[in-house]
């Protein structure tokens, strides 16, 4: 199939901020699903996923198994790339730019520098400007989001607490980011300088966010979405798309649940449609109380 592809040249420029952020714009209103096999990737595409995240283990299993979680085997990622036509994303460890280089060489469409994997660097994230492939990063608050954007992230996802099937952390992080943005929009110019210090973020980015009333890149939501109503909730709060990790393939009957979450994300403001698609889906993933967790993945990242 690659031989049928047309070369973008001449006069063309690849890897610009506009095309990197642009792919994130195209995913708006959609559902990005974690998959661990080509078969799961096909189920996700059939259900209407806008992209898949290729992983060796979903976060619930990473949490259960413990140990060091790393980038997936390239052969596994290539198997998923061959199985679907929608964008394929993959995760690298925080700060592990060599894993990111490998993922770029595989031609993945987005790299997730993710707290779900074990961090490789306790002070530095990847310099994402150095890459042609775009990056998504997690954030729990506005300062974290702006630091990731200043490093070149083209999409932010609120972190939530991956692998728990519990939406409470996703809601907290989303409300935190959006609430802090709203406060910036009513701040005076001198307050913006103070806000930049408080958020530990570049003042130019703080001023830009204050002027626009939103991040300069799309804000998606991840970590704990397990039901169609969860998707509707975070979309109504202001997320622009959702990542569903363990919530689909750790449930009783993944295919209908995947379709239902896609429908609920599109029609998030119409409760009668969310009700219709929520009927008879079987058991959702079991889920965990946040207070009982040994490891909180959302605390990774600096």
């Amino acid at each position: 199939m690659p031989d049928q592809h047309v070369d973008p040249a001449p006069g063309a420029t690849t890897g610009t901020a506009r095309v990197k952020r642009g792919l994130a714009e195209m995913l708006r209103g959609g559902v990005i699903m974690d998959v661990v096999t080509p078969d799961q990737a096909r189920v996700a595409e059939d259900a209407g996923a806008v992209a898949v995240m290729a992983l060796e283990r979903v976060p619930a299993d990473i949490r259960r198994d413990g140990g060091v979680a790393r980038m997936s085997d390239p052969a596994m990622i290539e198997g998923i790339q061959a199985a679907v036509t929608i964008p394929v994303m993959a995760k690298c460890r925080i700060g592990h730019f060599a894993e990111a280089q490998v993922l770029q060489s595989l031609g993945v469409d987005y790299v997730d520098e993710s707290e779900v994997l074990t961090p490789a660097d306790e002070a530095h994230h990847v310099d994402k400007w150095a890459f042609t492939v775009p990056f998504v990063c997690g954030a729990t608050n506005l300062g974290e989001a702006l630091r990731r954007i200043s490093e070149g992230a083209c999409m932010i996802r609120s972190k939530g607490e991956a692998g728990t099937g519990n939406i409470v952390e996703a809601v907290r992080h989303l409300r935190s980011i959006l609430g802090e943005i709203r406060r910036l929009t009513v701040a005076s110019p001198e307050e913006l300088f103070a806000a930049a210090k408080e958020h530990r973020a570049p003042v130019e980015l703080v001023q830009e966010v204050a002027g626009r009333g939103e991040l300069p890149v799309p804000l998606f939501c991840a970590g704990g979405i397990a039901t169609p109503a969860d998707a509707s909730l975070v979309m109504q709060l202001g997320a622009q798309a959702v990542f569903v990790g363990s919530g689909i393939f750790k449930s009783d009957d993944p295919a209908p649940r995947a379709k239902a979450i896609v429908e609920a994300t599109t029609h998030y403001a119409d409760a009668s449609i969310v009700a219709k698609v929520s009927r008879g889906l079987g058991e959702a993933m079991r889920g965990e109380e946040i207070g009982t967790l040994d490891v909180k993945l959302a605390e990774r990242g600096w």
Partner: protein
Amino acid sequence: MVKVGVLALQGAFREHREVLAALSADTVEVRTPEALSGIGALVLPGGESTTMTRLLRTSGLHGALSEVLRDGLPCLATCAGLILLASEVLDGRADQEPLGVLDVSVRRNGYGRQLESFEAPLDVEGLAGPFPGVFIRAPVIERTGPGVAVLARHDGRPVLVRRGPVWASTFHPELAGDLRLHELFLKEVA
């Protein structure tokens, strides 16, 4: 000025609405067949064509859109929107079933993956000076049927085509930071 419906199942519908609003056009988001009543033009945005195709079917919009477009509703389709309109989709999914309103054959992800997404200046018929072409996992138009006019090319291949009131591009004018293509469309259809 006409009211413009923007298909809002998924994708870059907000950016189209912002461009249209900057040109003083009224817009409405279309997620159900009922939202089509009273609109004078339609925009089909970019996004994932496989996702939109599925949602067109479950929302009942597939049949409703075919009908209004065959009745001559003006339409501007970009990227995945073009794939929805095409008469033939190469490398699509077996169940992709496009609306078949525009007689072109289009290859999905024709340039490859995201790493091959690019920007390039375009000469567009009817616009003075180059237009910024933003191509994101863009499709390639492999064939244009009789009566389909080519308004812009990149590297010799059609990237903006028109048949009567139906306009379609493989690139994203809504991300270009340049209102002229939407303005031209509105002027022609209004």
